[in-house]
Structure formats: C-alpha cells, structure tokens
C-alpha cells in the first residue's frame, strides 16, 4: 500500500471513519460522504471537502487569502457551488489526524 500524505488521508477516511465515495481531487483536496451527518443542524448527510495538511509540512500559513483560495478550488470541483464550510485535516507524525471545520463567514454558534 503506497502512502503519500493524501493516500493516508483517504485510507483513514474509508477504513477508520467509514466514509463513502472518498475521492482524491489533487494533492490537497479529498471529498467524501460521512457515514452519518456531521452536524446536527445540517438538513441531510452531505458531501464534505477535506484540505489535507501535514503538521510538519512547510509553508502552511493560514491566511484569509489561502482559505479563500481553498473555497474557490472546491467551488470549481463542485459544479460551481461554493459550500458553506470546508474541513482542514492535520496529520501528525504518528498518523493521528485532527479535523477542524472552516466556515465561509459568520455562522450561528451551536450549543455544545
């Protein structure tokens, strides 16, 4: 089993998180459908977009410009539809991945 960073993410989503239709789009972006919807306020289980980042990778500055470029890339992959959120996945050197949502602008906070 080959394991470039993006393929490690793919394996993690399919066999650990049990997602369906996991697709690699380029070196950065993976999409897939979770086994259950991720946020209770979502209407239905929807396609999620993951930006795959190496914790030890270089040049991983998190600016508005970069976030916006991610949204634009996802838009071009998603029938020109800009999603309300994307997800950042950060890979640690022991293979742990932590995922964080990034919303496109202000969102009503959820009660924990």
């Amino acid at each position, binding site marked *: *089993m080959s394991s470039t960073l993006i393929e490690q993410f793919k*394996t993690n989503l399919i*066999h650990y998180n049990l997602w369906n239709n996991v697709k690699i789009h380029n070196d950065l972006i993976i999409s897939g459908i979770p086994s259950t919807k991720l946020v209770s306020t979502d209407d239905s289980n929807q396609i999620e977009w993951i930006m795959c980042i190496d914790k030890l990778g270089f040049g991983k500055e998190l600016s508005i410009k970069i976030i916006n470029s991610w949204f634009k890339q996802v838009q071009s992959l998603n029938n020109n539809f800009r999603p309300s959120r994307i997800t950042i996945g950060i890979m640690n050197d*022991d293979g742990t991945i932590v995922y964080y949502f990034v919303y496109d602008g202000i969102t009503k906070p959820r*009660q924990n």
Partner: protein
Amino acid sequence: MAKKNNKNLNKIYKYPLPLIISSNSNGLNLNLNLNLPNLFPHNPISWIWYSIKLLYYNLRYDVPSNDDINVVYKDGIFKIENESSMRKIWRMGFFGKGVLSRSEPTWKERTLIRLNLIKTDKCKLTMEDITRQRRAERTDFKKKRQKLQDLELKKRKDEITDEELKEMDELDKILVEMRKASQVGSIGSGGSFDIEKDEEEDEEVEEVIREEDSKLIDSNGRLIQIEYVQLQFVETFFLKFALNTIKISNFANLTELFKVCCNHYSESNSINPDNKFILEYLVYHYYRSMGWCVRSGIKFGTDYLLYKRGPPFMHAEFCLLIMDLNSNNLDWFQVFTKARVVGSVKKTLVLVYVETPTIEEFNQVFYDNNEVDDEGLKFLKLFKLYKISEVIYKRWNPSRTRD
C-alpha cells in the same frame, strides 16, 4: 482522574517499557513471571527452598529474550508491520499508534465484527466502540435537551398545554439523571470488557458491503491486515537511542537516523541547536526518563500529554507546551487560548522551557570525531548541553476562588 479499574490491566500491561529484565550477570533466570518463594534471612529453610525453586526454573524454562522489533522507514513514516510487534510496542510502554485506530491497533478485530466475519455472542469493546457509544449517548442527550428548550420557550409564550408541562417535567428529570451518569462515566473507559451484544442491533446490521470492504477479503475469505503502527520521530529515536530495542534497516547508524529526524523538522540541511526535532526529543526523553507515559498532544493543540502509567489506566493529567527560549515561538495570547482548551478538559498546562547551547558548543560535540566509536556517548554529551525547566500555567478566576 482514574479510569475504571480492571484487574486484567495490570496483567496485560505489566511491562512499562519494551524491555524484559530476565537474567542477572551470571545468566540466572530472574524473570518476573516466575513466582519465586519469599526469602527470610533468619530462616535457613527458606534459603534452601528458594535455591531449589530457582534451580528448577532455570532448568525448566528458557531465559526470555528481548526480540528486536523491526521498524521500516518508508514514505517519511516509521512503521511497524508485524502483528505481534504491533501488540508488543503498544502493551509495553504505549508507543506508536495504529493508523486505523484511536491508539491501540484494533482495526482488524473491529472490522471482523463489523463485516460479520466472526460469530460472537459477546464482543470485546474496543476504545473506538466506547467512543462511539459515548457519542451516541451525547447525541441523545442533546436531542432531549433541545426538546426541553422548545417546550420552555412555549411555556414562556404561554402556549403550553398541561400534557406538555408534564412532558417537560419528565424530560427535566431524565436530563438531570443523564448529566449525573455522564459525570460518573457510565460506560467507563479504557481497557476492554465484555458486554452482551444487543439483539436488536443484530437485526439492523443488514448493511450493503461497501466496495472498499470487499477488497479487504482475500480469495480464502480471510480479512487482510492493512493496519500498521506508526511511530513518531521522537518515539523512534527514543526506542533506538535510549532503549535500543528496535531495528531499522534503513539506517547504518544512529547519526544517520538523527539527521533524517532533524531534516524532517526543518527546511535547512544543516542542523542547528534549536532544531525542532531536538527540542521535542529532549522534552520527550526527559519525561519518559521520569517514568511518565508521553504521547502526542495534537488533539488539544499542545505538544505532548503526560499519562501516569498509560492511557488505559488514567486520563492524561498534564498537557505540555514546548517553549523555545530563542525563537519566541508562542506569544502570551496563544498560550491563553491553549490554556482555555486544556482547562476545559480538566488538565493542567505545563510550559516546558528548553535552553539551547550556542552553535559553537553544539558543533564541537556533534562533529567531534573522537567519539565516533560510541555514538551513544556522543549524543548523551550533546543532549547534556541543553537545560529543561518547567512552569505550571493556571488560569485564575478571582470571582470563583473567593471564600
């Protein structure tokens, strides 16, 4: 912070490190597994009995050996692929992480159950099952809370019926119970224990097997193991330099391994005294040498977590943040934010300051060719140039700590 105690845990995790001290300098078998009788200095019969037992064990059993664990460096990852080594490295000191598990490599066991490849009445609960169960409970709690809040709103608007008032009362009671239960830790955590499998659940299982899952089964109908254990760079270096219990075929010597680790953390080819790998390694080694189980703290946005004994026994008590005195890597605002996260999971934040030597002092030791015949000593000398000091950081809330 103790987790539910299980007698089996002490048996499974009896070795704190992947080392078995099995014989003394004369080659006598002193394996801790053997139950040698007590020795009473004032009672000569106990000496004889002890000698007989010791002799018996040494003739009867082999001295257990420390088989090296094979580690492969591939695609920038340190992997352990042999199943018994995977188990060993987790059970003896909690090193590494199963790439398809939360920590202990349990993917194969879980998948066998998930794909109905083994028939069991009772199933072992893995850490992942416990997490899932706890999340399901939490979701259920949130649903009920939402309902209660909707009813409360109705009440305030005076649109509520008597029946709904009753329902509100009941919901309120249930929620109080659920809150209590979650604080006690209703399912317990860590370790594994048996539960009766839910029969209703069995009926629901008729899921369609995913295409990806069908590829996991070989022509004999057996599940293919695709999980391996991934070691952190600091763990790998610790197991090689400090314990020397692993074999890594890719590297001729320790210096080569060290260079690969340092270069992985820094863009420049030359190794500086404040290389991030060195700082992380020193802090890792420092706490390991004092008996703590050190694991990655990435889930809480910190560098490390400290466990007493290990994850199955206790929740982590401390989160560590490595502070580099030279490069000011964190400002106070960043420390504040991390401290709030750490506080909310009832852990204590420790700031670990590492004082580095000058580049001249560093190079003098690192490039000293007189020590090449003992690399271990060279690194020991090198690491002794660093100083570590720690500070506990705690948020103080004046209005809450008044008497």
